[in-house]
């Protein structure tokens, strides 16, 4: 290793910042990805926190990571394995050992690789690289801590504060490695530490020192040059994670529909940030009630919906389980409601900080009785915006609860996002009862085309009425136990949802549309499946991909699309729930499965392997 400076020209690169929870890796990861995005790269990032609880300093459980994938053109996932790892301590090195590409660069803080540190990470020997059998890596060992401290001597900081700047030193190094001008970083630091002038200056100094160290050092390694995207679509860009995008989608829908936005929620990992984000939006009049539990979360939302707001509730799997009964009420009452479920590893408390797609069946069926709801699944961090917008639109226009499934991976992952122009989004028109039909109106009078009942919001004179969870007469809306009426109402509630298929986009097959093999996915696996398919097509292996965002009802052309392929493989992060659902709907279509339940997203490489095998099978 360590020969001389070479500039590698790359299409895309994956960098992983990793260190102890207290080392500030999330911050540098964020800054670096922002920087890259501003300079015209596409980015996709993923923070990999330790489990919720803090673990002892230096321990394996305490490692916190942030991965960023940047590239010249569309980057679809945060990447399987890293080209560059920044490991601030031995634990970080150990935890990431399986996620390194051959020939990758590993930057370590020499000062944190003492015997004591190695012990904390349960190393047996003093040579961690050998012990981990890491041979083909380029190690840049830098005394980051001591150099940071040395550089800050004149700033009059206490030791703790000075040491805290070491993440900036590391960032400086990385900027050098990737040919990123560090002056683009200073605005971030100015904003972040606007109230602490000295700290800000110290951070800038450490950053500069790191950069200079890289530039001046004789320990040369490959450095990288990434093309920037020459022709991105014009417009304003930001970088956004899935939870924020979800919150923004609700805000946008509220504005478009003219309804005030209400969120009733109870904190739960990994959904809480939606509550945090909306709680900040008092400026836009958003009302958030942090409730005593999940049931109250949905029930306050049901009350708010009854009162005429665009009402939502946000949660994760265990919380969705608690909301089942109340979702049934919303089905029966036929009121709009958006229920966001950021899926995590289950069952029970399971793996709260990990990702999974195992709430699909729960979303479809987790309630008593025949109680159909709309189910939508967001596909990427930025798609969370559109998915939340669509969820709101369908909920309001079709007077129904909509369950929006996202997951820990896309909720916390982020990518570059072109700020949308709301004017080009479809309108959202609440089906308020027109005054013109006041005489014939009854609480469950429906638009016979869509089966949607009209909405009469409290406060409106002449439309006073009572609704509830008991079965109602189809015509008058009063309580009814009549057998045939129950059949009609059950059928009608189902029909209302089925008809929504007329109002959602059809499926679009990507990749080699005319191949024999179709990869089917839904929700948050889009990036990985798409990357795998693109890469195979690029290497001449023809394969198609279709991805479901609308789960219930399914797009109208679903059967048509599926029936065109000889081999269909449904890939999901569960034991096969969507595959089962498709079999239920289209038993005549033969379906293969690829499943993974490891709390982790797919790896593009494993997908390619699996698809290649499938191609070869007779």
């Amino acid at each position, binding site marked *: 290793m360590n020969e001389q400076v070479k500039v590698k020209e790359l299409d895309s690169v994956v960098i992983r910042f990793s260190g102890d929870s207290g080392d500030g890796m999330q911050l540098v990861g964020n800054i670096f990805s922002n920087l890259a995005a501003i300079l015209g790269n596409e980015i996709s990032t993923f923070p990999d926190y330790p489990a919720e609880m803090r673990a002892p300093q230096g321990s394996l459980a305490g490692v916190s990571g942030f991965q960023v994938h940047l590239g010249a053109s569309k980057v679809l996932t945060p990447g399987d394995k890293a080209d560059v790892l920044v490991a601030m301590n031995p634990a970080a090195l150990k935890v990431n050992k399986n996620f390194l590409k051959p020939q990758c660069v590993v930057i370590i803080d020499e000062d944190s690789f003492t015997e004591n540190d190695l012990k904390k990470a349960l190393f047996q020997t003093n040579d961690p690289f050998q012990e981990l059998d890491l041979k083909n890596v380029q190690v840049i060992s830098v005394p980051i801590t001591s150099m940071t401290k040395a550089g800050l001597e004149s700033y009059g900081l206490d030791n703790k504060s000075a040491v805290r700047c070491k993440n900036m030193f590391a960032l400086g190094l990385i900027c050098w490695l990737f040919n990123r001008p560090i002056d683009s970083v200073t605005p971030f630091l100015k904003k972040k530490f606007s109230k602490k002038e000295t700290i800000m200056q110290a951070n800038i100094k450490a950053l500069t020192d790191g950069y200079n160290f890289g530039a001046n050092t004789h320990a040369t390694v490959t450095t990288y040059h990434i093309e920037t995207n020459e022709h991105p679509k014009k417009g304003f860009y930001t970088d956004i994670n899935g939870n924020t995008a979800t919150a923004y989608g609700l805000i946008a829908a509220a504005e478009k529909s003219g309804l005030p936005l209400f969120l009733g929620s109870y904190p739960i990992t990994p959904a809480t940030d939606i509550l945090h984000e909306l709680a900040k939006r008092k400026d836009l009049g958003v009302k958030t009630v942090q*409730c005593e539990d999940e049931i*109250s979360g949905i029930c306050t939302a049901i009350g708010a919906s009854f009162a005429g707001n665009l009402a939502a509730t946000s949660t994760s799997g265990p919380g969705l389980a608690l909301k089942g009964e109340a979702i049934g009420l919303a089905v029966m009452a036929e009121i709009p409601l958006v229920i966001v479920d950021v899926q995590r590893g289950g069952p029970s408390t399971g793996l709260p900080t990990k990702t999974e797609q195992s709430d699909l069946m729960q979303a479809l069926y987790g309630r008593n009785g025949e109680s159909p709801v709309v189910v939508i699944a967001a596909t990427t961090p930025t798609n969370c915006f559109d998915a939340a917008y669509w969820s709101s639109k369908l909920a309001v226009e079709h007077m129904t609860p909509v369950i929006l499934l996202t997951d820990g991976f896309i909720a916390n992952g982020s990518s570059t996002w072109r700020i949308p122009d709301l004017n080009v989004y479809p309108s959202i028109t609440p089906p308020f009862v027109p005054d013109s039909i006041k005489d014939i109106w009854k609480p469950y009078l429906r638009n016979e085309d869509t089966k949607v009942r009209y909405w009469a919001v*409290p406060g409106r004179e002449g439309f*006073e009425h009572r*609704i509830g969870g008991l079965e109602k007469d189809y015509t008058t809306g*009063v309580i009814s136990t009549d057998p045939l009426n129950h059949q009609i109402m059950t059928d009608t509630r189902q029909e209302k949802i089925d008809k929504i298929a007329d109002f959602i986009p059809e499926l679009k097959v990507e990749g080699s549309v005319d191949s024999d093999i179709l990869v089917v996915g839904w929700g948050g696996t889009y990036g990985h499946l798409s990357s795998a398919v693109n890469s195979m097509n690029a290497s001449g292996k023809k394969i198609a991909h279709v991805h479901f965002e609308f789960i219930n009802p399914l797009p109208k052309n679903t059967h048509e699309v599926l029936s065109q392929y000889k081999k269909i493989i449904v890939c999901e992060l569960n034991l096969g729930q969507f595959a089962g659902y498709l079999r239920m709907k289209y038993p005549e279509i033969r379906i293969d499965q690829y499943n993974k339940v490891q709390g982790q997203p797919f790896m593009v490489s494993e997908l390619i392997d699996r698809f290649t095998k499938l191609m070869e099978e007779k």
Partner: protein
Amino acid sequence: MNSQYTAKDFKNEQQIKWCPGCGDFAVLNCLHKAMSEIGVAPADTAVISGIGCSSRLPYYMGTYGFHTIHGRGSAIATGVKVANPALSVWQITGDGDCLAIGGNHFIHAVRRNIDINIVLLNNKIYGLTKGQYSPTTERGYVTKSSPYGTIEDPFNPAELAFGARANFFARTIDVDLPSTTECMIAAAAHKGTAVIEVLQNCVIFTDGIHKYYSDKENRADRTIYLRQGEKMIFGKESNKGLVLQGLDLKAVTIGEDGYTIDDILTHDATLHDPTLHCKLAAMEGPELPLALGIIRNVEGINYDQAVVDQIHRVQANTQIKTFADLMMSGNVWEVK
């Protein structure tokens, strides 16, 4: 009050399905009457309930109404009120709905001091499911689910409400229509969560359970109707009163044992410290009369108003007025 409404404006034509003689009828009538005097339009009134015999009440109202799911009335009413504070929001609930399955939402609504009026019909039984004991059933009572008698002590709804820091609590008996109506009107006037416990007779499962207090004959001797600023006097001949001895309340006869009218406590429902209200609410026979009327009525910050105030405060200091503003306020760059 000068209301433009009559009780009829708050009724509707639905056939009422309670058992003949059920105490719920009286409460319904009082609510019709009270609302007509409060003067909020039926269209601006929302009546929310859970599940139970008592929770059927919204169906018999000419207002907006929502008969929801068991125990969740407080949460749903909270949502209604926060979403549209202009509505007058009422929750109708039973001892099971409110204090068993709904206990948590109840105490949190009370703590947050949402401006809703909770009418709790306490018949000490689950009526709708045909007779199981409830959290207000006395120890030892035999019901379908306690064939050998219950082995738990009941909640006193007032104590629980005060434990959750209630600012308004009133108690009435179903058969006393004027008092019930009066308390409802006061509850509506109160900004914040108002709890009205109505001792309600279930003719089927707990017939006569409140008889000791509700019987016309003995009511004056066994209950005391508390009125703001008035002496705590009761008895058929209005010659009994309450005095405080140390931390204990005692019932005395005026003119006996040296007690004069001046020794008798004066009711002040607006005392911030709930101690005396709590003691009054806990009184029981035979030693002490049962407290009726408005026991506590204190001003506090109510949640729905605080939500509005906070929004106004934030909006006064921001440039972000629309979604587009929000989008441009963050870390944004332009590609030209």
